[in-house]
């Protein structure tokens, strides 16, 4: 795999130079979660009941926010042409970009989520499940999002289109992710949901990079 790690490293290097983007994603996550108690009311019981859903929906929307940056800059400045021409198979190149995107958006979201779980009164025992579910679920969001981001390259109003495309596809990770936390909270077994999340990740890992590659090929035609 010549260049796979090199491509990941370059994208991370660029993400570091534009670290404001990651900060924006995290800020959006925090703000969305913080807004909920104002809408629902501060009763701990009520908040704890809806906390898994709030945390997962907020993380999902935050991950959505940075999706358009995955391929668009490279598409606009011509780098994507050169990536297509490189020795690296295009599916792996797409995977490299998706991995870099996840490290600079999904991973930080999962890591700061416990702090926000406190804000919405999530039961402390469910905290590890929250982090695990996000660690398993956000890569799937990045993988599916990568396909949609590549499909919408060159479209008018890419941002809105992107949200519309991924919305139905994000339902399964959301169901299993929030379901795992809720199972733990209500004394059930979160393992089934977590395993389903892992299965989604495995399937997305196998299929999404090639779909994204096909979409990139269309975009550079």
């Amino acid at each position, binding site marked *: 795999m010549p260049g796979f790690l090199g*491509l990941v490293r370059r994208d991370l290097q660029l993400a570091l130079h534009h670290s404001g983007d990651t900060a924006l994603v995290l800020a959006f996550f925090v703000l969305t979660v913080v807004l909920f108690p104002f809408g629902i009311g501060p009763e701990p019981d009520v908040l704890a009941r809806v906390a898994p859903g709030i945390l997962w929906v907020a993380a999902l929307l935050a991950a959505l926010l940075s999706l358009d940056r995955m391929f668009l800059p490279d598409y606009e400045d011509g780098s994507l042409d*050169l990536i297509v021409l490189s020795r690296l198979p295009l599916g792996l190149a797409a995977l490299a970009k998706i991995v870099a995107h996840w490290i600079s958006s999904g991973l930080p979201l999962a890591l700061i989520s416990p702090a926000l779980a406190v804000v919405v009164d999530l039961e402390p025992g469910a905290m590890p499940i929250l982090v695990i579910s996000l660690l398993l679920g956000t890569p799937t969001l990045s993988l599916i999002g990568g396909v949609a981001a590549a499909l919408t390259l060159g479209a008018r109003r890419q941002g809105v289109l992107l949200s519309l495309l991924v919305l139905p596809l994000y339902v399964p990770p959301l169901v299993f992710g929030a379901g795992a936390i809720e199972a733990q909270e209500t004394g059930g077994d979160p393992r089934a949901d977590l395993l389903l999340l892992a299965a989604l990740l495995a399937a997305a890992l196998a299929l999404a990079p090639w779909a994204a590659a096909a979409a990139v090929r269309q975009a550079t035609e």
Partner: protein
Amino acid sequence: MRPVLPDLIGEDLACRRGERLIFSGLGFRLPAGGALVLSGTNGSGKSSLLRLLAGFLPAASGRLMWGTQPVAADLAGHHARLHYVGHADALKPALTPREQLGFWSALRGLSRRQAAAAVEAAIAAFALEPVADWPCRWLSAGQRRRVAMARLLAAPAPLWLLDEPLTALDEASQAGLQAIVVAHRDGGGRVVVATHAPLAVAGARRLVLDDYHPRRAREPVLPI
């Protein structure tokens, strides 16, 4: 004695962008060491032909061959033997020319040591030493163009496809580029240049794309 390299051959090529047929019936033969200069009015399809030659977009009809092999049969192999320098410079404002040249040459399959040596040679050939460690956002348009061209030397490839290579280059750089193209061709490399400017390429074949304008050749509404 060099081994005999296959020719790059276009036969009856047609190109469609969107629903518009841009050119049709275009043919050429480009042997090793040869050069092809594409000229024509704006919109006559110079850039499209270059992208077609690079294998980005399939021909609407006709065939592109590497010797007796259709290019479409081994697209990855075709990509590996060419360099494409388009309108866009593909430079990241935050990274330095040295970083980016090293990255692209690694992505072309060069080992770390080979890449480092090739990058130094490319930087020297395009006189980029003074700016090699500046972030690209500090570079002028001409310097950025030279960095984009330096990719040609940062990893070897026999076929160069250059889209308006002289844009923004000063006279010294233009002369430098021409010398590099001559050296490339002397080594058996071949080059296709799309340009308005009169680029002195010795012995180049000239292809005027307006001659292939599909005046009476409006194809069926659907590509069949």
